[in-house]
């Protein structure tokens, strides 16, 4: 039996250090819904999701109550829309059906209005991508993603060019909310098929009919644990992070198995990510600062993040029978109070964030850039990030928000878990001719790696 001090330590983690399970995400395959009639397809998709996920939110709440650990989000990911909408002229109808299903099941987001175009684009892929500005403006809970590159296929620069314009258009369409529509779109390279985190979640074509994927969190717990080893060598820092990650991940594993059992759906993976929220004490940046940096973004930040990311995985892998998804520390600027402060102080810039994405999960995430940033510059930011993912064999993503009317020094408020984004500077020099070329950047060598 566990000791009283262990019990009290868990209670402290939950109450003071904001330990939570960030999301239970039910992945649902929609291949069985395919039809040559748009109406029938939408009807089947809606019915399938509403039926399969009928008890998802309620079960999540029950587990939360039984174990006394908050489960912040209950979500759904589905088969990428472009893979099932081949016979549709208007994929917008599918988007609306997905949004309605999310509303009916009570989940806060549904992910999978997605296209996988890392090598080439079908007519359907093009239609889905072209519909994004309209769809992400009209729908409330739908999230979209586009995979534009991979280590095996290279980078589809035609898609990269297209996405710059799409991001810009979405920002303009949703200018009343600071360009918030862009927060619901992730541009990936090396996207994973079992990611439970939004906005980039989709249920990949290699997945089964249905799966439960769980994303854990707990930056506050890691930060508190590190306070006990102030001034000690990095060996002890790494050990402390590993042990803490183990405990956090065990909670995720328990919740995943319990949800799987209660919903009678196979357990997929636990995603070992440190996901911050804008709440004080729930910040990845503050973990890095606890390691001895005056402010996140200064010299040493990349090394600190590399250690953190690796130690979280080492501790987490042991704690879970199946690990997957993105699994790494997230560094979304607007969703992390430490990152916001660092960006406002000038220590954290877009260039430093790009370097940090080489050693941690995901990429340039929730970053507001000036509203007058050109589509080509956004495409070039995407291309740079995709190149990092392609060469380093890792998932990267870009979720930037060219906030309409906003300038460097301004701040865009999104509210809730999305937080507040200080507008960050981009280079004033043009990448227009570079992006104008189109075509594909070939897949890289897998040997001679220096």
């Amino acid at each position: 039996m566990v000791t009283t001090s262990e019990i009290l330590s868990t209670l402290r983690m939950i109450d003071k250090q904001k330990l939570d399970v960030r999301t239970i995400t039910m992945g649902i395959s929609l291949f069985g819904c395919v039809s040559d009639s748009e109406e029938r397809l939408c009807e089947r998709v809606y019915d399938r999701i509403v039926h399969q996920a009928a008890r998802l939110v309620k079960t999540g709440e029950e587990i939360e109550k039984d174990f006394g650990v908050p489960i912040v989000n209950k979500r759904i990911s589905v088969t990428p829309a472009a893979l099932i909408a081949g016979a549709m002229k208007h994929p917008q109808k599918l988007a609306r059906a997905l949004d309605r299903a999310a509303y009916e099941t009570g989940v806060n987001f549904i992910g999978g209005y997605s296209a996988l175009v890392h090598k080439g684009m079908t007519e359907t892929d093009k239609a889905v991508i072209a519909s994004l500005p309209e769809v992400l403006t009209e729908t409330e809970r739908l999230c979209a993603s586009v995979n534009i590159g991979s280590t095996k296929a290279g980078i589809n620069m035609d898609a990269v060019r297209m996405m710059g314009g799409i991001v810009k258009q979405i920002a303009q369409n949703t200018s009343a909310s600071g360009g918030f529509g862009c927060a619901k779109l992730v541009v990936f390279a090396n996207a994973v098929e079992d990611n439970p985190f939004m906005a980039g979640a989709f249920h990949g074509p290699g997945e089964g009919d249905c799966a439960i994927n769980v994303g854990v969190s707990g930056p506050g717990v890691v930060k508190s644990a590190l306070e006990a080893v102030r001034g000690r060598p990095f060996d002890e820092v790494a050990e402390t992070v590993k042990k803490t990650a183990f405990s956090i991940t065990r909670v995720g594993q328990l919740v995943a198995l319990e949800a799987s059992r209660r919903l009678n759906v196979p357990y997929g993976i636990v995603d070992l990510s440190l996901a911050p929220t804008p709440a004080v004490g729930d910040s990845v940046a503050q973990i890095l600062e606890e390691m001895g940096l005056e402010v996140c973004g200064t010299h040493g930040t990349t090394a600190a993040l590399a250690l953190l990311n690796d130690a979280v995985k080492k501790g987490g892998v042991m704690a879970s029978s199946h690990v997957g998804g993105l699994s790494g520390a997230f560094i979304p600027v607007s969703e992390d109070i430490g990152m916001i402060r660092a960006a406002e102080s000038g220590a954290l810039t877009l260039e430093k964030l790009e370097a940090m994405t080489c050693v941690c999960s995901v990429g340039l995430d929730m970053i507001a850039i000036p509203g007058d940033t050109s589509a080509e510059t956004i495409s070039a930011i995407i291309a740079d990030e995709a190149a990092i993912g392609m060469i380093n064999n890792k998932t990267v993503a870009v979720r930037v928000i060219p906030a309409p009317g906003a300038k460097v020094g301004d701040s865009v408020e999104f509210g809730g878990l999305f937080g507040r984004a200080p507008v960050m500077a981009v280079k004033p020099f043009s990448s227009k001719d570079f992006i104008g070329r189109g075509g594909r950047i070939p897949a890289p060598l897998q040997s001679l790696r220096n």
Partner: protein
Amino acid sequence: MNETKKAVISVLGLDRKGIIARVSGVLYNNDANILDISQTIVSGYFTMVLVADISSQECVFDVLSDELTALGEEMGIQIRAQRSEIFDSMYRI
């Protein structure tokens, strides 16, 4: 297989008369059997951790949990019931 189901009940708050009596009263009414109690008072703050067997057919965790939360609100202290698996999985391999 009839596995023992256990709940961990934690009580945190300013010390006052009758905390143990009333918490164990709720457990008794819900047919839960107390297996272990540990209790400390640090500068007037009362901390109690109690482990109870809740395997009985008569014991519904949901009801027990709600009653304990309500009792905590009434007494101005924090009472929380959690299934023991969360602690076992966090600290035992």
